[in-house]
């Protein structure tokens, strides 16, 4: 993390629901979060924890008829995202904040050459550029992601999965956005390509000074690329801190401890990996008190009644009654 801690993104007490005729899904609950300039924040959690919903809320791209921001505010620098009109948002998307989708196989339009798809981003946001300048920029950005500019006339189906993801990254970075939301950018790729793509993203991010929210459920990826980590569970951030804080010490949320217990460790001898008992709570019917209490090995009486606040230790926050004392300090 850079020493200059200028805030780029601030989310305060965000509640997002998906409302259909039959039920209401509480996808994000009272979530607060900040991202500083130039840093990478890892957003980790199980499937259905609300990670993608959070990213879509920042882009304001929640499914129109069902998804709704119930309360809370999102500020992207001086822009109040939650209060902005659709037309203003459109100008922001791609220019200020860009998103990399999970599956490169489907996130490129199959009938346009990739060069044109990169150019489109520039046409939308950099209207002052001439045709030649756009072409030049397309070549430049393709070279940056390691694809020969000679191939800009090729169609998506002519590229491999890893190359497609690089094209997607090229599109996302074409306008040099301030914030990049990467929604599991490497999940659809095989392990060797994963490493390449992550390394490249990190390098580009550093070169362009972009901040990034990296959504993943791979703790290995987090350890390698992130500055700070937020662990999400049932729409809440249960623990957030610097990577070193998360990967060391005992000051952890029981869920984080359980997560780390469920990945193989090279140094310790373990017979069997520890799975977390039970399932994620039903998001239409969340438990009272701490959302993790039905599965928590260290559950106390208070956990069933009262939702814990965030206990902060030098910027390392844990939302658990176990550390309630620390919060009072």
């Amino acid at each position: 993390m850079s020493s200059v801690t200028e805030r780029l993104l601030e989310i305060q007490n965000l509640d997002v629901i998906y409302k259909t005729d039959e039920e209401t899904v509480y996808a994000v609950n009272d979530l607060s979060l900040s991202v500083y300039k130039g840093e990478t924040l890892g957003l980790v959690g199980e499937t259905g924890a609300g990670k993608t919903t959070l990213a879509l809320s920042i882009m304001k791209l929640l499914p129109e008829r069902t998804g709704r921001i119930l309360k809370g505010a999102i500020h992207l620098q001086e822009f109040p995202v939650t209060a902005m009109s659709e037309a203003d948002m459109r100008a922001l998307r791609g220019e200020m904040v860009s998103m990399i989708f999970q599956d490169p196989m489907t996130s490129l339009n199959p009938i346009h050459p990739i060069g044109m798809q990169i150019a489109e981003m520039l046409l939308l946001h950099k209207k002052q550029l001439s045709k030649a300048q756009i072409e030049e920029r397309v070549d430049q950005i393709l070279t940056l992601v390691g694809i020969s500019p000679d191939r800009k006339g090729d169609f998506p189906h002519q590229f491999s999965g890893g190359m497609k993801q690089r094209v997607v990254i090229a599109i996302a970075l074409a306008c040099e956005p301030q914030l990049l939301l990467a929604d599991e950018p490497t999940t659809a790729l095989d392990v060797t390509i994963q490493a390449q793509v992550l390394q490249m993203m990190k390098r580009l991010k550093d070169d362009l000074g972009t901040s990034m929210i990296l959504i993943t459920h791979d703790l290995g990826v987090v350890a390698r690329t992130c500055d700070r980590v937020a662990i999400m569970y049932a729409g809440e951030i249960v623990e957030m801190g610097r990577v070193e804080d998360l990967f060391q010490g005992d000051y952890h949320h029981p869920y984080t401890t359980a997560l780390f217990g469920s990945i193989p460790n090279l140094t310790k001898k373990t017979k069997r990996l520890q799975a977390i008992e039970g399932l994620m709570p039903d998001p239409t019917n969340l438990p009272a008190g701490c959302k993790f209490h039905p599965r928590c090995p260290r559950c106390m009486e208070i956990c069933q009644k009262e939702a814990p606040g965030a206990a902060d230790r030098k910027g390392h926050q844990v939302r658990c009654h176990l550390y309630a004392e620390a919060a009072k300090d």
Partner: protein
Amino acid sequence: MEHIAQTVVVPKIKKKSQLASILHRYRKNRLAVLGLLIFLVLVFMAVFANFIADYDGQAITQNVRNRYMAPSAEHIFGTDALGRDVFARVVFGARISLSVGIVTIMFSLTVGSVIGAAAGYYGGKVDNTLMRIMDVFLAIPQTLMAICIVAALGTGTFKMLIALSIAQVPQFARIVRSAILSVKGQEFIEAAKAYGSSDVRIILRHIIPNAMGPIIVQATLSVATTILNITMLSFLGIGVQAPTPEWGSMMSEAKGQLRNFPYLVTIPGIFIALTVLSLNLIGDGLRDALDPRLKN
């Protein structure tokens, strides 16, 4: 891996432009090329009808002494009940059939696409309102509807064109809507939104081109149906007015003589069939040629 781009010397391959590669793929389909050739001959015939035959002298002037002449060097398709040269009538008939057929489809395709695109893309109330209106139109048989509109507006080629266009709009709206629904849910549409594309841009640049296949096929098929509809309206006496030559009315005028002078019916029939066939072959070829995934 960052150095790949710099270290690997890629031999410069000459890239074809998009149009050239579409043409290249189209050319591979022999039948489509045949269809295009037939169609071009018909268009040529329609455009240069004045140079091929004499309108006033041969196509509309009655000459009863020459009636029912068998095909010969002078009248290569023979003459009809009123002694008019069938070849000249066929040549001039191509004008009406092709122009009305194509203009009708262009008009109904445009209107239908806009309605279908709005319905498919926005969904919900917009979709329901627009499609229920289209359903009302669909519920009335196309021919009956065209007849009703002509009855209300009066006869004439231009009015017939309007009637046929309105009758074709609902099916294009339906096809475009369903094509859009199948493309809309894909991730690249969401990605396009995430780049800040507007709705209109997403529909025009990302959705419609992806849904082009079925639309083009339907359009070429509909030109064929429309040509048949013109025939039908002319037969009922509310389409192209006599003595203007038109393939359909030529057939219906001669239908009583099918047994004695079969060429009077079959010759315009062959031309209708050729037009319809060539359009279908073209549609088929275009669908394959426009799909870049089939490129090799």
